């Protein structure tokens, strides 16, 4: 595979099967995709088309059955568990639909958590966590628990946590899926700012075309295959959505 200096993600002939009681179920079939540094990409597709499966592989949370995945020109398939953990810690920031905060830890501690696994000393951890809190506009909630703040605020905390190790890539699986329209807009504004101002590459899964509209590029999945990959403007998203 060709090496691109600015390629963040290079995926080729990627297959993923889940092993179930009824035998192997193919979910991703011959997926090919490249993402360059600084891109803002939205992945859409009907429910069950394999978007989350794809994102989990991109986020090094799961491994593909076959095919190749290069992240920053490193072959992820050859990495050990510890090296994958290192990638999740420092190269990728993952944002989940369900936020996935630790319920018993304070907001501040939640944000500082990735730094623990990096070995950052405590004072530095708190300093960075509070910088991130300010960045996402939640400085006044630093010692609250996740269940004491709103869903939108929780997602901001999750984004702050994803950002705290200064990753160059943010992966977000339906980050606005649990939020109302107004809150979704705030979150998307935050992503746009991260992409435009800090140059962070963003790959985001969504069901809503007005969320996808924040991206520059659209990838459409259907039944485990990429059926569209191109600029957002010509995607005619609502139209395509209805045909698959």
């Amino acid at each position, binding site marked *: 595979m060709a090496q691109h200096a600015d390629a963040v993600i290079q995926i080729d002939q990627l297959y993923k099967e889940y092993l179930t009681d009824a035998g192997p179920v193919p979910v991703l079939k011959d997926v090919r995709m490249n993402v360059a540094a600084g891109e803002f990409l939205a992945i859409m597709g009907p429910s069950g088309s394999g978007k989350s499966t794809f994102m989990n592989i991109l986020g090094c949370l799961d491994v593909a059955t076959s095919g190749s995945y290069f992240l920053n020109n490193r072959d992820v398939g050859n990495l050990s568990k510890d090296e994958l953990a290192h990638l*999740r810690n420092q190269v990728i920031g993952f944002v989940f639909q369900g936020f*996935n905060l*630790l319920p*018993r830890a304070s907001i501040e501690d939640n944000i500082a958590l990735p730094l623990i*696994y990096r070995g950052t000393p405590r004072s530095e951890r708190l300093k960075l966590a509070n910088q991130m809190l300010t960045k996402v506009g939640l400085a006044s909630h630093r010692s609250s628990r996740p269940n004491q703040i709103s869903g939108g605020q929780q997602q901001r905390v999750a984004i702050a946590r994803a950002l705290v190790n200064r990753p160059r890539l943010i992966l977000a699986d339906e980050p606005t899926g649990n939020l109302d329209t107004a809150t979704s807009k705030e979150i998307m504004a935050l992503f746009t700012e991260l992409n435009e101002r800090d140059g962070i590459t963003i790959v985001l899964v969504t069901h809503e075309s007005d969320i996808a509209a924040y991206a520059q590029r659209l990838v459409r999945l259907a039944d485990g295959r990429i059926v569209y990959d191109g600029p957002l403007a010509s995607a005619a998203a609502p139209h395509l959505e209805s045909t698959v």
Partner: protein
Amino acid sequence: MTAAMLGEAWAAMGANRLRTFLTMLGMVIGVGAVILMLAVGQGAQQQVQASIASMGSNLFIILSGSVTSGGVRMGGGATPTLTLLDAQAIEELPSVAAVAPSSPGTAQMVYGPNNWSTQVIGTTPSFLTVRDWRLEEGFPFTESDIRSATRVALLGKTVAQNLFGDEDPVGKTIRIKNSPYVVLGVLAGKGQSLDGRDQDDTVIVPVTTAQRKLFGSQFVGTVRFIMVQAESAEAMPTVEKSMNELLRQRHRIREGADSDFSVRNLTAVANTAAETAQVMSLMLGAIASVSLLVGGIGIMNIMLVSVTERTREIGIRMAIGACGRDILLQFLLEAIIISVIGCLIGVGLGVGGALIVNKVSGMTVVVTIGSIVMSFVVAATVGIFFGWYPARKAAGMKPIDALRYQ
């Protein structure tokens, strides 16, 4: 890194205090039981050893009368068959260090307004040598006191205290069975004997005085028992054999007939007692260790539940970059903290319990640094051992499976 993981483990424990406390309780009880049982066991052992040390070394006691079974027989020492001349003859045997013919009895003694009833032993000065018994004050009586059967006495510590209180008994005259006796000295304290009697509750007088003036024996010149000290432990079997031969000869006992005396090796008896105490101590320790083991299994049990319950948390931690080692360390540290804190409390309770046992029952208890250190090492080991499996389980999970866990 480890400090941060320690913080994470601590926070997790604080999040479920009741459970942490209950898990710890198993450890507390286990360690407490071990400390207490070791203290009691070692106390018993120490007491036995002190008694043995107070007995004198390489000792035989020869009792009058037969103690062998068969037919109706008197118990040991019932019929006086041993004489002072027997004792003198034994003293001539090779490898015999000292011989003390003795006649015990009980008598009432009075000093001023105080009176006390106690054991009186009529014996020779070598009794003190044989029993390795020092005088705290005054002087022992001598051979000439034996020859002329003078009325002199040595008081055991308990007797001296009960008759004289704070007064100095040496040189004072007490009345035993209404006759005046001059107190020559006070014996040093010896404490309890192997069978639990107070050895200091004794008065020693010359054997001849006891025979002729105090107890008025029917057979003048006989004694109840003779204590014999061999020169060394190695010489004991030879001494035992030659004493038996000598006495049978002197008592004209035909071959095959039962002896009218019996020789007991007191040192062997003492060793048996020491072994018994040691076995008891070991058994107590073993029983207590079982509760420590149960406490350890309790930790494993709770940790396994905890790992299952916190699968999602593990998934989240892995998703943001924890590697297997980090997760392992966190759960292992939790187990170790629980067991070590449990151990600390257990040591406190064990030591406290030992002190209470000592107060309530008067038993000797010995808490050694060794037993505390040992409990600590065992507790930490139990924590690591029983924490390892659940921690492994947590660390071995795949991030995506852990995250998806409902």
